[in-house]
């Protein structure tokens, strides 16, 4: 029983990171029909950017700051301007394929310019255990969970409580009408790309200390985020959050109780069942787009 609790807490921590990545994924889908197959690589890259800045002798906090800024510049602005904008009007599929190629490009670039080996990465949360109700729970798991929850709460407040958030929702739901009532739709779309870039940088900061910085680590992460987004509901931020947490916990429990060999199958089966019986996702609403 106590073992179960450990598994669930650890699962929630990974799940919270999946949720961050999945939220960014759904944001891009809603505002600009971009299925970003490079989302996992987007999470892998910022850690290496931060490591590079640290190699130049900068302290950790500065490296994080520069890493987030660079990430916003490269994965937000440049990604939108250079890849998404020219291809968007030609439909979903060519753009999706282009992001697949981008994923290969990012992976190879990191392998070539940084290292093919896994590098350690400093943790923003101190390592150690804390006693909760007589149980030792990893401080790292709690820290990750706390930061991820803060980020998600911040984002939902932005989207639901502020004028800026309402404008973004309008731009996603009906760009034409939004434009008529004076919402700067283009700027709002750019903003979602920047938010995605910051979210993946944050996810990178949280997950890399646990799994090390490696050029290939984006593959698993990207797939987990896709599954989380679909299971929770492709068109809902809170769906993506629920999906992320669910996949994190299910994955961890499957590793312990199913078999290590078929652990990866459990989220897939869950995905197939959700798509077949509730294609709008667990929390999603059918045929409606909201941020």
């Amino acid at each position, binding site marked *: 029983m106590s073992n179960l609790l450990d598994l669930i807490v650890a699962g929630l921590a990974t799940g919270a990171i999946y949720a961050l990545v999945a939220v960014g994924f759904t944001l891009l889908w809603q505002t600009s029909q971009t299925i970003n197959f490079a989302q996992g690589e987007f999470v892998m890259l910022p850690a290496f950017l931060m490591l590079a800045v640290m190699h130049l002798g900068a302290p950790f906090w500065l490296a994080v700051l520069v890493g987030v800024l660079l990430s916003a510049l490269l994965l937000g602005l440049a990604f939108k301007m250079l890849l998404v904008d020219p291809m968007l009007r030609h439909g979903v599929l060519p753009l999706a*394929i282009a992001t697949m190629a981008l994923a290969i490009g990012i992976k190879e670039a990191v392998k*070539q310019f940084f290292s093919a080996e896994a590098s350690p990465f400093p943790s923003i949360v101190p390592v150690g255990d804390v006693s909760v109700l007589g149980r030792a729970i990893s401080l790292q798991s709690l820290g990750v969970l706390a930061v991820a929850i803060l980020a998600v709460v911040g984002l939902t407040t932005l989207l639901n409580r502020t004028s800026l958030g309402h404008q973004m929702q309008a731009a996603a739901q009906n760009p034409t009408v939004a434009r008529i009532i004076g919402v700067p739709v283009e700027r709002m779309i750019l903003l979602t790309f920047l938010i995605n870039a910051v979210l993946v940088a944050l996810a990178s900061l949280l997950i890399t200390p646990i799994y090390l910085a490696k050029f290939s680590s984006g593959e698993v992460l990207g797939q987990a985020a896709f599954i989380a987004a679909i299971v929770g509901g492709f068109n809902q931020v809170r769906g993506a959050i629920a999906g992320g947490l669910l996949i994190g916990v299910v994955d961890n429990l499957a590793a312990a109780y199913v078999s290590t060999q*078929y652990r990866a199958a459990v989220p897939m089966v869950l995905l197939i069942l959700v798509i077949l019986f509730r294609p709008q996702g667990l929390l999603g609403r059918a045929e409606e787009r909201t941020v």
Partner: protein
Amino acid sequence: MSKHGRLLLAALAIVVIGGLIIVPMNFNRYGLYILSQWAVMTIAAMGLNLTLGYAGQVSLAQGAFVGIGAYGAAILTTHGWPLIASLGLVIVICFIVGWLLGYPALRVQHHYLAFVTLAFSTLMFLVFRNESWLTNGIYGISNIPRPEILGFPTRKPLPFYYLCLGSLALVTLAMWWLIRSPWGRAFMALRENPIRAQSLGIDTRRYTLMAFAIGSVLGGIAGVLYAPLTQYVDPVPFNLQLSLDLLMMVIVGGSGFMFGPFLGAMIAVLLPEWLRVAEGYYLMLYALAVIALLIYSPTGILGILDRYLGSRRTQAASALRAAAQSKLEAAQ
């Protein structure tokens, strides 16, 4: 197309086919291996082109069917079956599994369908890796024999390349016939406007499943050739990446064009080899080339040609119209 254009096309086809037969004769072992791989991947991509390009159903499972075919051939031929018999069994299996995989397509479309098939791909990879009693797990199956075709052994690289090329030719002819048959028209109707297709009496349900099943069979055929080509089969080549690569081949070549997969497979299999002079940078350059191509022409390589021919036809038509106009005015 004009008579002139058709002659030109026939001449081009003869040159290309002749080139594919004659030029590799003095290739080394590796060159022949890569070229055989191109032929095999083209067959798999043609299957996906039928499912995606003609019938409009997104599938990220084609790599899994190549895996089923490769494992089928590897297991059966190492147990003494002739390759042609294992081909028969693989075709039956892939048809049934592909048909079943088509069922989700009746409920969901587009990215949802992509993810169902993606999940299937991952599940098949896990089966290849974990069911050691059948697939020998991560150690793989080695010493896969190459077949004898009509008494000719194909152990050497050149005869085996000709076997791959010959299979590609047969598949191409079958595809050519299929696309022009009422079935092919029904597939395209399904892609263009499923509701209208249904109202015209096309059984969209059956054709959707059929598009998946036939596309999957071509994946299986490619796999049956893949096993004796590499003579060693393990799970790694059949992970999700293969399905993504095949999808990339179809889109980059030109989805919905008969010869798109040929060019797409050329880009995906041969371009990285040509770029090897760039050493560690070659895959990066490859990714950049694919992105640049897709930005320039999202409909793929044949999309460029199509646009060019289309604009020429428009120009020719307007020239004719102008000539007719002046004649009409002169007559009045």
